C-alpha cells in the first residue's frame, strides 16, 4: 500500500513516517500544499493523509481541487481543527475520514486500515479476511485456525495488497508502484521472490501467475 503523507510539522511527520513504515506502508512525505496538489494527482497512491494547516495552499483547497480533477483516492484529513463545522466543511470538500489532533497512534492505524478496506468494498472488522485468508494486520501474520503463520514485512505488504485486490490481474510494475515509495530502489525480481515465499508458506494455489501479464490473488477458498 502506498500512502501520501502531507504534514508540515516535521517532528510529527517523522513520527508518522516511522509508524506507518512499521505497519508496512510505503509512505511519501510532502510538507507543502502546492507540491501535494501536483503529486497527489500524478502518483498512484492508495490513500492520502492530509493535514489542513499547510504552507503554500490550505489543505481544504488542495482537497477540493483533487476532487474537482476527479481524483478518487481515499483521503484521511488529519487536523487540529476539531469543531463540527470544520468537520462538515472537510466532508463537503471531499474527505473520507477526519481525525483530530492530538490522536493516539493506534487510532490512526485503525482509521487507515478501515478506510482502505472500505475503499475496496470490504467490511470493517477486526481482521482482513478475503477468500479464506485471514490477515492480522497488527501482528503482520496469517491466521489459519489456531495456527499463526508469521510473515516478513515484505511478504505482509505484498499479501495485503493482493488481498485488497482479489481476483484482479496485477502487473509487476503496478505492484512495484504501490508497494514501494518514490525513493526506493526497485529491483526487478524482488516481487517474484516474495510471491514464491508466500506460496511456500500458504499454498501454491494462493496466487496465480499469468505469464507476461502479472499475478492474480485467488485465495484458499477451495
Amino acid at each position, binding site marked *: 500500500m502506498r500512502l501520501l503523507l502531507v504534514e508540515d510539522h516535521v517532528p510529527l511527520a517523522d513520527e508518522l513516517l516511522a509508524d506507518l513504515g512499521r505497519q508496512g506502508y510505503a509512505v511519501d512525505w510532502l510538507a507543502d500544499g502546492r507540491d501535494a496538489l501536483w503529486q497527489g494527482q500524478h502518483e498512484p497512491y492508495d490513500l492520502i493523509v492530509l493535514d489542513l494547516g499547510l504552507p503554500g495552499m490550505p489543505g481544504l483547497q488542495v482537497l477540493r481541487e483533487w476532487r474537482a480533477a476527479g481524483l478518487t483516492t481515499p483521503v484521511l484529513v488529519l487536523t*487540529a481543527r476539531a469543531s463540527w463545522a470544520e468537520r462538515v466543511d472537510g466532508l463537503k470538500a471531499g474527505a473520507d475520514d477526519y481525525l483530530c489532533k*492530538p490522536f493516539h497512534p493506534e487510532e490512526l492505524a485503525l482509521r487507515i486500515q478501515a478506510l482502505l478496506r472500505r475503499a475496496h468494498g470490504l467490511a470493517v472488522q477486526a481482521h482482513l479476511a478475503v477468500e479464506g485468508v485471514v490477515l492480522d494486520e497488527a501482528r503482520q501474520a496469517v491466521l489459519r485456525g489456531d495456527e499463526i503463520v508469521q510473515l516478513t514485512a515484505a511478504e505482509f505488504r505484498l499479501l495485503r495488497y493482493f488481498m485488497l485486490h482479489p481476483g484482479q490481474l496485477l502487473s509487476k510494475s503496478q505492484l512495484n508502484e504501490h508497494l514501494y515509495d518514490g525513493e526506493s530502489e526497485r529491483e526487478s525480481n524482488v516481487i517474484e521472490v516474495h510471491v514464491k515465499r508466500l506460496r511456500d508458506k500458504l499454498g501454491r494455489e494462493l496466487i496465480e501467475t499469468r505469464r507476461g501479464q502479472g499475478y492474480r490473488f485467488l485465495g484458499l477458498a477451495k
Partner: protein
Amino acid sequence: MISLQRRLSIALAGILLVAGLLLIKSSLWLFDSAMRHYLQNDLRDEAQSLLGAVREGHLGLLLDDRRIDPSFQRPYSGRYFRIDFADTTWRSRSLWDAQLAVAQQPAMQPELVDGPQQQRLLVWRGDYQRFGQSLVITVAQDYTPVLYNLRRVQWLFAAIGGMTLLLVLCLQRWAVQRALRPLEQVRGQVRQLQEGQRTQLHDQVPVELLPLVQQVNDLLRQTEQSLQRSRTALGNLGHALKTPLAVLFNLLHRQPLAQEPMLQAELREHLQQIEQRMARELGRARLAGDVLPGAHFDCAAELPAFLDTLRMVHGQRVQLAWQAPQGLRVAVDREDLLELLGNLLDNACKWARQRVELSLTPSADALLICVDDDGPGIAEDKRAEVLGRGNRLDEQVAGHGLGLAIVRDIAESWGASLQLLDSPLGGLQVRLAIPSRRT
C-alpha cells in the same frame, strides 16, 4: 412603550384645542363689545330725543307723549326709560309694573342689569341741564336677543372647530405615518436581522436615519469580523498546541518510555488532561453566543452534510434521520449549532443500537430540538448527575462528559434549557428548548 405617533397626536391636539378656544373666545368678545358700542350710540340718541320731548308747562316740566318712540309705550317692549329731576320720576309705560333703577354712573354701564321677564338690559345714563333743572335720563334696551345669538354662534364655532380638529388629527396621523414609514421599515429589518433572515440593514433610507443604519451595519460587520478573527486565532492556537501534543502522544510508545509503564501512564494522563482542558476552553472561546444578530442556520442546507459527517464517523451501524419544517431557519450561529448537534448526535450514535433521530420543532415562544436514540438510556436518578458532570476538570471524561459540557456551554450562551428524558425509541431523549428572541 412610547409611540412617536401618539406623542405627536397628543401635542397637536392640545395645541389646536387651546388655539381654537382662544380664537372662539376672543372673536365672541370682539363681537360683543362691537355690538355694545353700536347700541350705546342708539341709547344716547334715544336719551337725546327724550330730552327733546321734555317741555316746560305752566305746572312745571312735561313730557310730550307724541314725541316719544311708540316702543316706550308698549309693555315689556324691551325699550325702557326713566327720567329723574328734583324729586320727580317719570317711567316709560313699557316698564309696566317693573322697576328700573337709576344707573350708578353716567354713560354706558359696564354690567347688564336684570329687567322684567328675564330680560337683560343694557343701560345708559345721561345727565342734562334743562329749564333750570338737572335731569337724569336712564335709557335701557333688552340685550337678550344678542346674547342668544352669541350663544348660538358659540355652539356653531365649537362644532366647526371640533370637526376641524378631528380632520386635522386624521390628516396628521396619515402624514406622520408617511413620514415614519422608513422607521417602520427599519424596524421590520431589525426584526428580520434578529430572526436571522438578513445580515445587514438596507441603507436606502432618509438622511436622518442614514447615520444610525450605517452605524448598525458597521457594528454588525465589525462584530462578525472580530468573531472570525478570534476563531481563526483560536484555530491557529489549537493547531500550534495540538500538533506537538500529537508528537508527544506518539513518543509515549517509543524507547525508552515504553519500558517504563508507570512513567508512561503518568505522562499519558497529564497529556490527556491538557488535551481535554484545551478542547473545552478552545471550544468555549469559539462560541458566538448572542453577539451576532444576523446569524442563522439553514436546516435543509446544513443538516444533510452534517449527518453524512456523522455517518462517516460511525459507519453504517446507526440509521440517522432528521426532521424539521420545510425552510426552517434557526436564528443562531451556524458553528455553534453544528457544534451542539455534533456533540449530541455523536453521543447518541455511540450509545444507540440502530436508530438516532433528530427533530427541530418551532413553537410560538421556543425552538425545540430533540435527539432520540434507541440505546440503553440513562436511569432517571442518574440524569442530574450526568448533566452536571464535567463541571470540574477532573470529572471530565471522554464521551458523555466532555461532549455534554460543551453542549451545556452553548445552551447557556443562548439561554436555552437542557433536559434528559425517556425517548419514544426506547433510549435517551435529549431535549433542548431555545427561547425565541424578543422583537
